[in-house]
């Protein structure tokens, strides 16, 4: 009895929700409002705790996704062997072709089919697909989880508000199955790839930056070309490789299977598919493997531009002493020479429109400007000595 009386006088503490006189907002409304607030918070958190975009892969894909449907003439996929070499804005500026770069660090070959599929969703009328095959030389046993995630975390999770991106799921399944067969030491729980938040919510303890907290998504500003202050103007003197035409015996059956699968898929495409192997300080062993793969690809009816040949190097006009940022990649000057050659080749062999002057392609014009603005700025800084470069051998 005493307790009840006490309750009545301090009623607030025990039955707040039932005191309608105090609350002006009815319970149901409050619940809904709270849930809405919770959902918004959830969305915010999902966007804060996502992939750490060290190599800019997410930005590359964001740039691609922002392209208007059917505005691209093609895509150029591969690893850093792609995104450091092909400058889409340079090609557009000189020929009017719009071929976006969709390269990601150490892009696994097994994922390339899915990248093409993803691109075809919004760009089904593109004319050409360029595939850099340097990834074939990767030791898949040494695969890092990040190499997969740079692609699968960058893919949209939903195609539309009610449709899940099945292509992404397939990509994850295929990649994990392949790498399990290669005994790569990575995480194999599929759920962690389907729902990246399961991994990235742990980022609070390591590398969350203020930029992450804004939950904003940035885009690569050069249509996929990765233009960095420390790398792109870097100069490293690279020893020219000794080229060979010998081909090795291909052993790894699961890798050739993946390649065959990719070739089969490409055969069924309307687009022209061109395979390339960008130049770098390639070893004899690597060349022999590459020559073998090249033979395989040519047998399937595709053209392969292997730039790791003396003749091709001459045609590119690339200098080993000044056009490379490190032993694996050209710097921006080498990239311009590379793009110059390749764009002429593509112009000759594939019917590509010239979009210059088309007011719908203003974003490309802007990208070209940005490219030169940055180049000038970086060159100035380099001259002043305020630019920190990876290598500066002259």
């Amino acid at each position, binding site marked *: 009895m005493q307790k009840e009386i006490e309750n009545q006088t301090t009623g607030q503490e025990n039955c*707040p929700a039932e005191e309608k006189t105090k609350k002006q907002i009815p319970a149901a409304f409050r619940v809904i409002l709270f849930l809405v607030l919770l959902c918004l918070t959830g969305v915010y958190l999902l966007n804060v705790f996502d992939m750490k975009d*060290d*190599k800019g892969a997410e930005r590359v894909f964001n740039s691609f996704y922002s392209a208007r449907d059917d505005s691209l003439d093609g895509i150029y996929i591969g690893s850093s062997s792609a995104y450091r070499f092909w400058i889409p804005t340079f090609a557009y500026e000189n020929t009017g072709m719009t071929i976006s770069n969709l390269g990601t660090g150490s892009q696994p070959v097994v994922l390339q089919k899915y990248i093409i599929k993803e691109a075809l969703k919004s760009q089904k009328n593109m004319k050409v697909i360029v595939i850099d095959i340097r990834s074939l030389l990767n030791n898949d046993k040494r695969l890092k989880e*990040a190499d997969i995630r740079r692609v699968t975390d960058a893919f949209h999770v939903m195609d539309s508000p009610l449709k899940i991106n099945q292509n992404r799921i397939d990509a994850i399944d295929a990649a994990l199955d392949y790498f399990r067969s290669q005994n790569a030491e990575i995480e194999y729980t599929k759920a962690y790839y389907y729902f990246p938040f399961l991994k990235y919510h742990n980022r*609070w303890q390591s590398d969350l930056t203020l930029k992450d907290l804004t939950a904003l998504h940035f885009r690569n500003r050069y249509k996929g070309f990765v233009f960095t202050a420390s790398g792109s103007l870097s100069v490293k003197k690279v020893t020219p490789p000794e080229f060979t035409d010998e081909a090795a015996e291909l052993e790894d059956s699961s890798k050739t299977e993946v390649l065959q699968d990719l070739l089969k898929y490409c055969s069924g495409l309307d687009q022209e598919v061109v395979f390339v192997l960008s130049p770098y300080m390639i070893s004899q062993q690597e060349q022999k493997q590459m020559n073998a793969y090249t033979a395989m690809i040519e047998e399937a009816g595709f053209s392969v531009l292997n730039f790791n040949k003396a003749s091709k190097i001459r045609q590119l006009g690339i200098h080993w002493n000044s056009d490379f940022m490190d032993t694996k990649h050209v710097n921006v000057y080498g990239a311009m020479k590379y793009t110059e050659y390749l764009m002429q080749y593509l112009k000759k062999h594939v019917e590509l429109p010239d979009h210059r002057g088309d007011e719908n392609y203003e974003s490309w014009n802007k990208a070209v400007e940005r490219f030169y603005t940055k180049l000038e700025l970086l060159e100035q800084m380099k001259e002043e000595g305020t630019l920190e470069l990876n290598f500066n051998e002259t």
Partner: protein
Amino acid sequence: MSFVSVGFLIFLAVVIFLYYCVPKKFQWLFLLAGSYAFYLSGGLYMLFFILLTTVTVFCGGLWMQRIKDRSKSKKAAKKINKRILLGEVFLNFGILLLLKYYNFAAVNIGSFFGLFHYDVSLPLINMVLPLGISFYTFQAIGYSIDVYRDKYKAETSLPRFALFISFFPQIIQGPISRYDQLGPQLKEKHYFQYENLTFGLQLMLWGYFKKMVIADRAGVLVSQVFSGYEQYDGLQTFVAMVLYAIQIYADFSGGIDMTRGAAQMMGIDLVDNFRRPYFATSVAEYWRRWHMSLTNWMRDYIFFPITLSKRSAKIGKWGKKHIGGTIGKQLPAYLPTFVTFTLIGIWHGAGWGFIVYGLYNSCVIILGMMFTPVFKRMKTGLHINEKSNGWMVWGILRTFLIMVYGKTISRAESLPAAFSMIRKSVFWFGDGSLLHRLTSMGLNGANLILLLLATGVFIIASVIQEKGIEIRPAIAGKPLPVRWAAYLALIISIIIFGVYGEGYSASEFVYRNY
């Protein structure tokens, strides 16, 4: 189905939603179906055991009731019923003992004979323990004993009784309920009350916070140090031991919060199992605050019956006469205390660590009892004020430390390991900087700090509760922005800081090593 899984959350949401939709008089039936569905998620074969216990105890209860009702002599009835009760106890505890302890016994018997070079290798049972068997068996037998003692009449409906035994929120970790407390609630009609839903949900969230942010995080360090104990120095060992005490409390009480929260959402009140045990100022008091449903069970069904038996009375008389003083008086309580706490130790699991843990607690408590007058004289002699804060703090720290050491015995890989760790933990010297030593036990600096902060929140909440303030109503009484901020903060903490998803070991952050 683990409580910490998306599956369970969906299951619970569906059950609660439908619970309030079905006609009120079928609510209990719906709960029964839900509870068995939940139980089945563990495996079909487990069903056999819980059904066996449910049916035998139910029938035993009815039988006893019938004999009582029909018999003219109370004494005669009691005699027969005693046999029925013993039958039930032997059967159900027998099953529990067999399933839980057979392998342990077999291995040790083999080792024992091995000492004499006899090769005795008994076959081992390869079976997973039925879900919750340690809990529901005790709950069922408690009911039997209550019926035997005429505390209430036996339940006449098998399905209603089955619900009492299988009620899903409490099946995994308890609490061990009494039939007169839970039974009527299960039979009542439950109308939707907003406060039950919100308070229940808040309690569950608090449970998830304790488990996922505190317990599982501490567990990373505890597992690493306890399994590789030789490599760690004294301070590191001590830290791990303390963190284990924190982990097990956060884990268990967190689970109970989820349980009680879920039940509350259905309008059912399950007894609390914890009352801030680490605030106890003596080991005896600790056991009145820790796993209360179990210790109360032991008290009511083991301790009191033994201490109030005729034999005990005789021992008491003998003791008072021949030994006198405190010890003479306490004599009849020693054995039941010893038995009770050793049983509590064994209840935890089949292992020497648990047995010794039980013995450890018994000894500490009995010694405490014996030395009560001595301590009293010391206190008056040293002019110590028992009621002072200082003395209370001393009591809390002392008791906490005693329990840390006890729990280490139960958690360590083996008894020798336990003793090695305890011995080592007294000396805190070690190589290398303090920072390095603390962060090389499995948790990096960021995680250690978070663990500290989260535990701090836990401690503050406990202090508030200890002062008698009920937290959920207190928060509910605050203005809307304040309460919503609190609830959101709790939810967000669990989502961000919860230990789930991909990896906590350094190797998991492989993606950083491009």
